[in-house]
């Protein structure tokens, strides 16, 4: 699938962080959700969720936080404490200084288990609620494009998983369009099971239901929003 050609009269300047929504989605998908540890989404065992080579930040993330190798090395190189301190109360800090000048898109990740039942392409009620939230945030931004890429777990065949992940991305796109996001700016595609977060080998031998649960991190969608924000609407939210 082709991404819409970006008619760049003006390049996007500001990156959008949908971390507040991401944290709420994580809550919405309950026990299966990636945990939220000291500013990072993790797989429960403290292993950070990586997306496009970057750790996925949670709501509490603030400049200066660090987990494993998530951020570029801090200036004070000798940090003998590898384990991060328990989540400090997010101080009501006013905005971080300056956004980076280079255009950057931070992907917003949704657990597909929060949106769809297993092997289903129909949005669950809580999935619709999650997308309502996302649609609202996109609407608040001066967005230029919304790219949705679905991912599937490695169960089944590659071609089926490509089709399933693409169909789910299309269902999400159609729903976002229904909720007011400009359909012409949305693209939807499916990556199938090509880029697993957790492999079958990682999960090992276990009963089918447990295997499906173990493979949950592979069933996700990345929503990348490129655009400019009129005002930094970084809600240091109290979603908990």
């Amino acid at each position: 699938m082709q991404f819409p050609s970006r008619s760049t009269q003006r390049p996007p300047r500001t990156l959008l962080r949908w971390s507040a929504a991401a944290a709420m989605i994580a809550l919405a998908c309950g026990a299966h959700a990636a945990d939220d540890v000291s500013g990072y989404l993790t797989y429960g065992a403290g292993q950070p969720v990586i997306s496009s080579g970057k750790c996925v930040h949670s709501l509490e993330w603030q400049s200066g936080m660090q987990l494993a190798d998530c951020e570029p090395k801090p200036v004070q190189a000798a940090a003998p404490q590898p384990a991060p301190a328990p989540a400090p109360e997010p101080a009501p800090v006013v905005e971080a200084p300056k956004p980076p000048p280079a255009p950057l898109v931070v992907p917003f990740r949704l657990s597909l288990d929060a949106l769809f039942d297993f092997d289903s392409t129909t949005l669950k009620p809580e999935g619709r609620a999650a997308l309502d939230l996302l649609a609202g945030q996109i609407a608040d931004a001066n967005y230029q494009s919304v790219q949705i890429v679905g991912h599937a777990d490695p169960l089944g065949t590659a071609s089926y998983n490509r089709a399933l992940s693409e169909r789910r991305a299309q269902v999400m796109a159609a729903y976002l369009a229904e909720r007011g996001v400009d359909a012409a700016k949305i693209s939807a595609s499916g990556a199938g099971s090509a880029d697993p977060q957790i492999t079958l080998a990682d999960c090992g031998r276990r009963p089918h239901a447990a295997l499906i649960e173990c493979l949950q991190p592979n069933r996700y969608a990345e929503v990348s929003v490129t655009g400019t924000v009129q005002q930094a609407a970084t809600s240091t939210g109290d979603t908990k």
Partner: protein
Amino acid sequence: MKSRFAFAAVASAALAFSLAAGAAELPAPQTMNGITYLSGGIGHKEAVALKAEAKSYPLALVFSAGPRHAFVSEVKVTIKDKAGNVVFDSTSDGPLMLIKLPAGHYSIEAVQGGATLHRTLQVAVHEHKQLAFYWQKA
């Protein structure tokens, strides 16, 4: 009395809704050389809906592969008539295809992952046939 009527109304409304919901699970019909077909089966509901619909089509194709006979998609299907003319040529949108083939003798070629399978088939009027294509390698 009144409450019974109300119940009946609710029940019939619920039935109408579920029928509509069932229909919505079917992929949209397509046409190729005047032949109507449905292609899909992505997600459990759509597969169930297509299997229920199969009876009203002369030919149903099912594609699977691998040790667990898992569904495959993106199968290139070419159907030739007895004279060798290509009458149908399409890539599936899922593991199932329902095709309104007119009565006749056909040969079918299905390609998935670079591997080609061949079948021949006789379609008679008012008959329904299902052909399963299975590839060892998923």
